[in-house]
């Protein structure tokens, strides 16, 4: 088991991403949000998570991907941070996967821009790549965007 890791997986603009399952508090379906004027574009809005006010960040915006179609509702992946829970909006949620550590490879140097910064590497699964997102960096710099 030591060389296996568990990831919560999701889709963004056709890519398959994973984040450490222990960081994830819960997954909730899209709910009505309160937009925040003057906020950085990555901030999608605020949601009421059982009495707690949680900031929802649009991961597509964070990763500088094109916005999703207005008809597609994103899903909230709620992660713990030192500053309380934060929701990451993704296109669609995948399974929790156990992946062998040896299938991991660091990001190639050819990756450009924000992806180079936020994607730590990829797990080579049988028929596709699982991109490992650096949660700390994803949340940390979003304030300066």
């Amino acid at each position: 088991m030591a060389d296996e890791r568990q990831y919560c997986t999701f889709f963004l603009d056709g890519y398959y991403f994973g984040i450490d399952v222990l960081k994830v508090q819960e997954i909730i379906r899209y709910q009505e949000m309160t937009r925040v004027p003057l906020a950085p574009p990555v901030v999608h809005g605020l949601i009421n998570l059982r009495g707690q006010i949680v900031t929802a960040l649009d991961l597509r915006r964070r990763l500088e991907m094109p916005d999703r179609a207005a008809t597609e509702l994103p899903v909230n992946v709620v992660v713990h941070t030192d500053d309380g829970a934060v929701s990451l909006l993704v296109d669609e949620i995948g399974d929790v996967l156990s992946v062998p550590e040896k299938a991991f490879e660091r990001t190639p140097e050819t990756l450009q821009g924000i992806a180079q910064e936020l994607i730590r590497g990829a797990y080579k699964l049988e028929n596709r790549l699982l991109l490992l997102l650096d949660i700390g960096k994803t949340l940390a710099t979003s304030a300066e965007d």
Partner: protein
Amino acid sequence: MLAQSPQLIENACVLFAIPSVLRNAPTRRSVNDIVREFLLETNENLAQLDLDLVTLEQEPGERETLARVFRTLHTVKGTAGFLGLAKLQSVSHAGENLLSRLRAGDLTFNPEIATALLSVVDAIRKMLASVESTEQEGEGDYSALIQTLEKLTKSAGPPRSRLAPLPNPLPPPAPPPPPAAVAPPVAPPSAPAAPTNSFASEQTLVRPQPFTPVPPPAPIPFSPSAAASEGTKIIPTPAARGLPAPLEGKSPPDSAETRVPAVSDSSIRVDVGLLDKLMTLVGELVLARNQIVQFGTTQEDAGFRNTVQRLNLLTTELQAGVMKTRMQPIGNVWAKFPRLVRDLAVAVGKQVRLDMEGQETELDRSISEAIRDPLTHMVRNAVDHGIELPGSRMAQGKPLEGRLHLRAFHEGGKVIIEITDDGGGIDPIRVRDKAISAKLITPEQAARMSNRELVNLVFLPGFSTADRVTHFSGRGVGMDVVRTNIEKIGGTVDIESVVTRGTTVKMKIPLTLAIIPALTITTAGDRYAIPQVSLLELVRLEGEQVRKSIEQIHGAPVYRLRGNLLPLVYLSRELQVESTRRENGEVNIVVLQADDRQFGLVVDDIHDTEEIVVKPLQKQLKGITVFAGATIMGDGLVALILDVVGLAQRASVISGVRERALTETPATAAEQGGNRQTVLLFATNRGERMAVPLALVARLEEFPRSAVEKVGGQDVVQYRGEILPLLHVGRVLRGARNNTRARKQRTRAATMTDDKVQVVVYIGDKQRVGLVVGRIIDIVEATITTRAPANRPGVLFNAVVQDRVTEFLDIEGIIRKQNGEPRPQGRV
């Protein structure tokens, strides 16, 4: 193995949750219960000891206070012996010996004794801290202290035999031992901690019998106001409220010990964590209540509606009750100040008397915590920098003893705390020069700041007026931290200072943070909450009124509210959202107070006032100054809370000098080739084009000429319940004083011009003055690029504004000139 079906997501709100239990299992320190109880109780008593000793220093005759100090030390000693804390026992014992001589009247309290006894308190505190963290007394060596104490004890000479019997909880005193026994070789403080007593000097107090478990410490009279211990709060039950709180110097005499059990029976210790949790729960309940109440309005069932009504009332009462449990008198925070001031005054060689007024003023616990450090800092500053050395005070003819006055009171739903000293005051010129040399502001910025604004520059980060760094303050950090901390809890802080007369620091603090009444409004379809404390009134304009009463001053909309111009701020514009208001519809104005200015916030719709639970915004949104937080509304959705001051600054309603000073470095100012500022352009009655910074202008008014009255050759008007002196700008600049010729001129001018006078109301440090101008030209934001020195008195400099040479009026200068005051040299 890939994505789960979308249906599943639709149906289940929570797909999985990871228990957070795994992550933190707090490891509690293994200090046993008795020790913990001892630490808790002693820490509480130490705060009181500090107070009592300082009281005694001032009033050595206070026997009850002395008795209380004695009892406390005795209890510490006893329990320390019981727990095998030898050093603690020997130090408190030596202190107790000295006290017993004081009690007997063999010695009188003096500063030397006070210092020694305060050192005992410090030593005890240090050892307790060590016990708490390591369960050991620590490595400290207190033999010197013990020797000092014994020397002082000995100075009383042999104890007199008429030594009064000690109060009940103490063992009966031994017959006076021969003098030799009073000064035995001190047992090394590191003596093994045996429960038996090995101190020879103990004989002066206790029979030479094994120091077997001390009788359980007598219940210490327990003053709720002194319960400044970290971590717990005492809630007196109604029965206990009737008892007088044993405050400084007014404690019940020894005989009152019989009443003590009543206090301890009727109050309980509650963990503050529990209270915090309770408060959070009540917050949630308030939200749920709001939701139910909203739902209730859609229901017909009378029974249901009655129940909702009842739930509503009960929740309100519960909320008030829980909030009350968290209220603490500010005296708790102040309790350490007498000691602090005394120690600091002694250390810097000053004499300071500390007065406190309004100790009973209550604040929420979280706020007490938050203001503790800022207050301490201000008090330190006042003693260290504010109050002068006795020599200097004598030279100025002030009383040798400086006065530091702390005052707290409730006003308009806020707590006001004032710290006043009668020291040297803050010199605005010195502050200005320091700020310029530290590159915190540019000389241009400084030029258009009032003295009061200059004094408040001390709140900028990196500012220090202290020429020397002392052990206590003056390191250039602090005042900005003070302001940051105060503002973090929604308070404000302001300094008023008169050179040579003293300084007053005024803080306005909200009573509570958690639940506040707020008005909800809508703009662009989004709801926002506005804290009620900033709200002055609501104005609705319809149809014809809209067109008639909203006027423009060069694109800046204003509304005439009872004759005064109220600047209007459109929320949708400030938030950069699209207003959904139809053009022909009415205009809703929320009149708000930000700092000392009023402005009208134009919103789409105004709804109800309700209690909201303030929740902080997360760090991703911290930088947006127009929001103070967020809350959950009755329908479960989140609404943002507007920060009225932040909004006013964004809309430039209130002077943003400090923000500009923070962000605009001289370099960027130079890049712009000058300094951008909003100025009021006007013409004098001779048509000279002049400007004043808008920040200096309180209002623009128009008076009928008939309203101008003359008092002793001075033109005045009645204005907002005051008499406003008028200053004719054009005339003063030409050098005319209030002589006959001027009066003739004035008469002629009056007949020449129309029947209105245009007045720019300026609020200076001391007084308001109305500047009579020919006409108002415009309010513009201008980058002042070309500057030339003034070529006549009353003008600061000449500059090009809107492609025309414009004179910048020196308001302070012409006021001085009008009053016949000479130009100040050096100090203002």
